[in-house]
């Protein structure tokens, strides 16, 4: 253990003695026991927490906003397994970075992600790359629990990497460079303690989701309503609790003559939060012929949002489409999403 942290925790022990029994709110009270027999799908969590703004800044083509909340438990996903991450004593905050396009206010899930370093007086206090993550009330963000050194002024430094997802239309020329941003974050435990904290003893564990937060300063990630997707909507299907809207574009500024575009928008039920980092296979039959049978590629378009798509060499307008989920979204999950979207369903449209 390093000296500083040792002193900090010794101080804390002293404080709790002075405060006596009962009045010292420890973190464990913010993580009620998990729901027993969690359903295999999106469910209402035991509680939700408010979020404080730590700051926002421009970074190249991106905007980056930092929010913070109480340390959380969450689940990382590898393949079809969700692995629970518990809160450590050392964790001070759950830090969330949201990256968006300032022009369209679209939240960008970038597979190359974000690195965060927290500094104070020129020293690194904590540093790691937060996980790409989905949460019912915060949507898609990069998050993890971080360790601070008590109240005071910190510098949050973020490096946002270049996107390697396919970018279409007006996005084609954007987000190809990494960029850095930093904000000053005046942390006070008392401010953290004042964030809202609501438990749902009556409804926890029910199928459903808490609402996405609406924030003044930062957009939240939401895919378009299926009916408002550009092109001809081929249908909306549900599998492993994910919602898949398939749309067919015979015309778009990014298509050449003789080409069409298949887009599959995968989202959570209730809140339409995008489900990034999946492997999808697609097949397209048009005019009695198989015109496409291959992987769909993660892509971004201002009107389609984040989706999986393929340019298909056909002018057919009435395709029949098959979609197989080969691997579920490898994004980490906040409570209520960890049992959903871990399967590999197949659909036809």
């Amino acid at each position: 253990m390093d000296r500083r942290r040792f002193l900090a925790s010794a101080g804390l022990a002293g404080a709790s003695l002075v405060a006596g029994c009962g009045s010292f709110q420890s973190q464990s009270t913010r993580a009620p026991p998990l729901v027993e027999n969690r359903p295999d799908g999106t469910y209402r969590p035991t509680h939700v927490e408010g979020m404080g703004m730590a700051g926002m800044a421009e970074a190249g083509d991106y905007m980056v906003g930092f929010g913070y909340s109480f340390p959380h438990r969450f689940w990382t996903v590898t393949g079809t397994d969700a692995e629970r991450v518990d809160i450590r004593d050392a964790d001070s905050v759950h830090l969330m970075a949201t990256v968006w396009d300032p022009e369209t206010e679209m939240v960008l899930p970038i597979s190359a992600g974000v690195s965060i370093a927290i500094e104070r007086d020129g020293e690194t206090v904590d540093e790691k790359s937060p996980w790409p993550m989905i949460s019912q009330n915060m949507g898609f963000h990069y998050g993890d629990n971080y360790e601070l050194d008590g109240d005071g002024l910190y510098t949050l430094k973020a490096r946002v990497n270049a996107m390697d997802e396919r970018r279409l239309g007006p996005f084609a020329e954007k987000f190809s460079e990494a960029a850095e941003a930093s904000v000053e974050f005046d942390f006070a435990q008392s401010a953290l303690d004042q964030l809202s904290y609501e438990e749902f003893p009556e409804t926890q564990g029910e199928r459903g989701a808490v609402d996405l937060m609406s924030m003044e300063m930062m957009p939240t990630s939401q895919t378009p309503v299926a009916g408002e997707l550009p092109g001809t909507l081929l249908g909306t299907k549900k599998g492993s609790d994910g919602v898949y809207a398939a749309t067919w574009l015979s015309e778009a500024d990014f298509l050449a003559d003789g080409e069409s575009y298949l887009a599959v928008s995968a989202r959570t039920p209730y809140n339409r939060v995008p489900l990034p980092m999946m492997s999808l296979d697609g097949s397209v039959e048009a005019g009695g012929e198989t015109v496409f049978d291959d992987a769909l590629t993660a892509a971004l378009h201002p009107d389609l949002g984040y989706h999986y798509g393929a340019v298909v060499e056909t002018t057919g307008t009435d395709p029949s489409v098959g979609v197989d989920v080969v691997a579920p979204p490898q994004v980490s999950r906040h409570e209520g999403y960890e049992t959903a979207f871990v399967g590999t369903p197949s659909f036809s449209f």
Partner: protein
Amino acid sequence: MTDRGISRREFAKSAVAIGGTAALAACLDRGAPDVPEGADDPASLPARQHAWNDALATDDAGNPRMAHHHVLLLLDYEGDGTPTDADRGQVEDALRSLERAYEWSSDGLLFTLGYSPAYFDRFEAGPAGVEVPEPEALAPFEDPAFDTPDALLHLASDHESVVLAAEEALKGTKESVNDHEMAATFEGVFGVADRRTGFVGGGLPAENQDVDGIPDSEPVPEDAPLFMGFKSGFEGNQATEDRVTVDSGPFAGGATQHLSFIRLHLQQWYEQDSREQRVSKMFCPAHADEGKVEGVGENLGTDSAIDECPEDVVESGRREGVVGHSQKLSRAREDDSPTILRRDFDSTDGGEAGLHFLSLQQSIADFVATKEAMNGTDVSENSAVGQRTNNGILQYMTVERRGNYLLPPRSLRALPPADPA
């Protein structure tokens, strides 16, 4: 080295990390090892500076085992223009003194002296017959600084006191080593621009884990040879010394050398990932499913059983959502053999958990191709695997510095001309 300020953890450094005559004295106070003496005739030593494998100890399975302690000195030539013959003679005499003092082995001392593109800039053309390009960023998600000293000296031994004493002798602060007087030193010829240190071998990472980048729970296994908890460098997963040797031109018998400094962030690795996830990410998901790796991986013997990992890495990543580091890297093989010879070691320089990734290869292009395989950008573009998340061990590292060098053959190791022919 970085602008990150003075680390909170400077106080827990090892003797090698501290360096200097005081650290050497403190180290010898703990007991001076009996170190075998060197060759009477240094000309009897191998023609390749990088001929270390036969001089290394072997582990229980028979793999060459890297020396435990390392010092890297980034050196600048102090003369103006092209080196003089007098300076060449001085460098060669100093190195021969070390070879007389210490056996050419990990129980004695092993070293190499390499030269950078900046060194060759003083000549009319680059080194004859070998490309040594300036270092560059090798992934869109990295932003390294570049090392531009003239030369890189790598000292390695199983004894801390040996690397420290050899360093002090070259700097001229110690007149003799292992009871052998130094006939010459680097004084006036080379100045030290930077000093880096490290260690590798069972027990050392656990002993040195009180650094930034490793959580306070002391998670590094007692017997791990590297901070990340797995054994690396199996004979079957390394290029041979022959494979990495320059085979024609005046520098035949030499090799190219790449040195990067990588910082490690292991809190997620140890406190969030499960053992299964760690094995999936370091080796491949099939190894995790089959429980192929026990403990730090000694049970693997002399190779990481990479042929039991699915060969089509993009397809495997599409199905599994994760790809392993060794699984990805094995794609860079030629004729079923890796093209680089890894001689990397851990570091606590700057109070941070790090790795000096030192590798030898016939051409820097071999390293670049290997690193591209590690980036796994093709995997992330075409599958659920992220560019760093679930993409080998990329999530847990930041490349801070890169440098390229030419290791000439032993006969040309002292301030070589660009075209010795």
